[in-house]
């Protein structure tokens, strides 16, 4: 929605928004907790409230919205095939295209969860949908695996709905979610957080009887003798998000193994000129404000492309991940004369205290920024003024 609104604002005549769900907003309508929009609006809104602001804006424009419409294929030359019940197969020839398919949750299979496969194993997003949108509770006693923000939010949500939350188990030695969520969602509700722990076995042939949890050693293997059986009828998986790039991959867009999203430049343009990406399909952001911001960046890129302001033969400078940087977006920058402002989004690999983030190229240091503490769950965003040529590297150094 942010990208569509921005494109409209920049004077693009025909903007079409294709949405597979029955309402706009993606996952936001089921996020009825607050904490959305702090950066962009200076107030703490619910996810549904935040989405509604955009929906209201869209309604004021002549942006064409297609709901319950699934894109089946991105064909060559920026042609889209989609379908819905009223229009049948829809073929759209785009001048430029912005992909904003979001992300999906990792599943039991992907984390190699072992034991039986009874009913009662659910991703946090599914539990959230059942409770917040549909109005049903999928269990009475829950264990949560994964301390990412969704897991923490759901711990509180389930506690409020009267589900006994037996604990949150996290594989890593540090929490996966934002500190504010640890405090507001776990500590305030006396829900224990067990770091360096995992679920090793699911019990129950037909319906869930419980799980076995165990402590993990430094290399991630269960420590013998630490296994504990916990009775529960619901195992909530909050074990990470993956950008949903099947359409992009099938269209031949180059993907980054680190972000699982397309390789992007500073306009959020992919390896196919004229195709841009916005939001969690490009990289999993942790703040909705960043997501909306990426939409505006992509829309501005698309506008430039439509106006012929992006040259055909592009030369790129790579943006590399240096010491302790897990990934960085954008992954490359168009080579140009003069200066330009670019915001880099990145995550560190490990939690550290008192560090300096350095951005440089072979010729000069572009930026250095001090942090009291950095942790992988909290994305770093830094604005840099880029000039010159050569590859750019971002890295974290000890000391400040």
């Amino acid at each position, binding site marked *: 929605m942010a990208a569509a609104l921005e494109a409209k604002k920049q004077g693009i005549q025909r903007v079409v928004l294709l949405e597979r769900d029955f309402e706009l907003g993606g996952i936001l309508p089921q996020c009825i907790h607050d904490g959305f929009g702090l950066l962009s609006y200076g107030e703490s809104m619910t996810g549904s409230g935040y989405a509604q602001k955009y929906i209201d804006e869209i309604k004021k424009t002549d942006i064409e919205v297609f709901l319950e419409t699934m894109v089946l294929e991105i064909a060559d030359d920026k042609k889209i095939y989609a*379908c819905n019940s*009223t229009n049948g197969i829809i073929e759209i020839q785009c001048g430029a295209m912005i992909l904003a398919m979001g992300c999906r*949750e990792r599943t039991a299979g*992907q984390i190699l969860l072992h034991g*039986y*496969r009874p009913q009662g194993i659910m991703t946090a997003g599914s539990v959230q949908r*059942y409770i917040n949108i549909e109005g049903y509770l999928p269990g009475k006693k829950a264990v949560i695996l994964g301390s990412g923000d969704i897991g923490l939010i759901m711990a509180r949500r389930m506690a409020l709905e009267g589900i006994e939350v037996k604990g949150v188990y996290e594989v890593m030695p540090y929490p996966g979610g934002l500190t504010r969520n640890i405090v507001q969602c776990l500590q305030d509700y006396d829900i224990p957080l067990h770091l360096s722990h995992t679920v090793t076995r699911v019990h129950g042939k037909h319906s869930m009887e419980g799980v076995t949890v165990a402590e993990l050693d430094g290399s991630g293997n269960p420590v013998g003798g630490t296994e504990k059986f916990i009775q529960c*009828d619901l195992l909530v998986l909050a074990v990470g998000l993956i950008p949903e790039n099947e359409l992009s991959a099938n269209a031949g867009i180059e993907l980054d193994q680190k972000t699982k999203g397309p390789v992007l430049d500073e306009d959020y343009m992919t390896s196919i000129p004229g195709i841009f990406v916005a939001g969690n399909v490009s990289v999993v952001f942790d703040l909705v404000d960043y997501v909306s911001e990426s939409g505006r960046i992509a829309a501005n890129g698309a506008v430039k492309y439509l106006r012929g302001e992006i040259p055909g033969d592009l030369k790129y400078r790579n943006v590399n991940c240096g010491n302790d940087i897990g990934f960085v977006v954008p992954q490359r920058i168009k080579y140009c004369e003069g200066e330009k402002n670019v915001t880099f989004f990145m995550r560190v690999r490990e939690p550290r205290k008192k560090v300096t983030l350095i951005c440089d190229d072979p010729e000069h240091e572009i930026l250095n920024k001090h942090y009291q503490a950095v942790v992988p769950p909290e994305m770093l965003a830094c604005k840099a003024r880029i000039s010159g040529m050569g590859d750019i590297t971002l890295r974290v150094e000890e000391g400040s």
Partner: protein
Amino acid sequence: MIKIVNTFLSDHYPDLKITAKMDAFNRNIVTLSGECKSWQQVVDIGHSVAKIDGIKNVVNDLIVEGMEIPHKDYSPYVLQGEKLGVMDEADVVIIGLGITGCAIARTLSKYDLKIVAIDMGEDVATGASKANNGGIHHAGGVKPGTLKAKLSVRGNRMYDDWAKELNFEFNRCGDLLFIENEEYKDGLYEEYKVALENGDYQPELVSGDRALEIEPKLAEYGIKPKLALWLPSQGRVHTYEVAVALIENAASNGVKVVFDCTVCQIYTENGDVTGVLTNKGLIKTKYIINAAGVYADEISEMAGDRCFTIHPRKGTIAIMDKNKPPMYEHLTGHFMPAEVQKRNSESKGGGMEFTPSRNILIGPSATEVPDKEDVETTSEELDFVMRINENSKVSKADIIRIFAGARPADYSEDFVIGMSPVAHGFINAGAIQSPGVGASPAVAEMVGNILLEDAENKGFKINKDENYNPLRAKKVKFANLSREEQDQLIAERPEYGHIICRCETITEGEILDAIHSPVVPTSIDAIKRRTRAGMGRCQGGFCQPRVLEILARELGLDWIAVNLHGNGSNILKTDNRQQQQNEAGDQV
């Protein structure tokens, strides 16, 4: 015979006190009892006694010191069933609706017979038939002279007609086994000879060059085969899809299907079967066909005929994301003798395969377990399975689901098919494990012939059903249609324009087709097996609530009554809004 068995036991297991008894019907079936040190030992002794020349099978009552072997308790079902009284009357009751039971149901539906087909699960194919890799095997790996070999070869050839009539996906991919050096040459020759002896369809020993012609992709990976065995008969299916197709066709031809129906007693009078007691009541019948998978030995025991023992052999399979395409078009791999690969020679498979939907499957393993319902996966089993991965582009990171099933193996390691000499009218179709999927058309044919022959001898006249229709209409698979076809379809029925499962592109129309079918699926997993909704990389994360909603709406159920897989597996426990409204009402 008993002397030979006792000598064998005292020679090989002098430390154990094992008693052997021969069966009363001179079938050379031995019953073993006594105490062993481990479950593996129980299984090993059973196998080795069954291998003694002249012994037909083993009923294994051996127990393990200090180990409780789980047994199903039928008494609550008996109480319930007796209370309910007569539930139905039939000519034939088929117990167990895995691929074997479904095949038998469809085969017998050609005749003017009243058939009731029952299963303890909530759907067809809820046991081993949903947890195998769907191979329609060539005959290079089965022991010549066995029933398995005979029926596997015949069943394999019958699949073409089945696929045509029943409209399921069948891919005759062929199996290319190659060697790059001389080491396993003898083994390859041996497998070729076995295939020939079994009468497999056109097995061929081919040169390295010819192997490259058959599977040009070998060259891409820099593989230079020296010699290869080409077995064009190998095929692949989705076993659960075949089972659904069979039972739908059977039901259209008049077979009555009852789920959640557990057999707990079998009644006989003067040596003839008269009825089957289930938790839903008594079904009076002339014939009983036992296709109960891992429970087939217990069902046979209920009929008074203990003639084999099922020892479940667990197989774990990892299924990979479709974005990692299979390396080859044919089933292709290095040839290695079973013992080198450390796989079980009695169960085929155990390699890299892929489904007709082009998901790579790795596995299954083969582990003897005491519990028939042990389908737990473990990291050890998964590691074992991943060891046979030959695709360097595939790793554990690509797994979308790990599952396990229990093969119903007996100690003769052959199929047990035949009319019981103890309970007349009781026909076993037991111990049907690998290559049981491929053999199933021939198993059904054999069981059908046994029944027809017996009826003729008894003067019970069975006519062909004049209205029998062997055809099952092709189901819409939206994702496989051209854009024009899709557009036309949506214009006719708008439900096909509503995508429910994003990963596999499954429409509401396809889910409605599955629900409004001759055998109504009632669980989320039953919908998954029929439509693939929820089988993709998100594993139902997005579509499960939508499928649940459609099921509840179409079947007139409350949301909380919808199960994942059978009774007691309801996904939602509390209707929260209703409860809150009630509480608010109480306060007023």
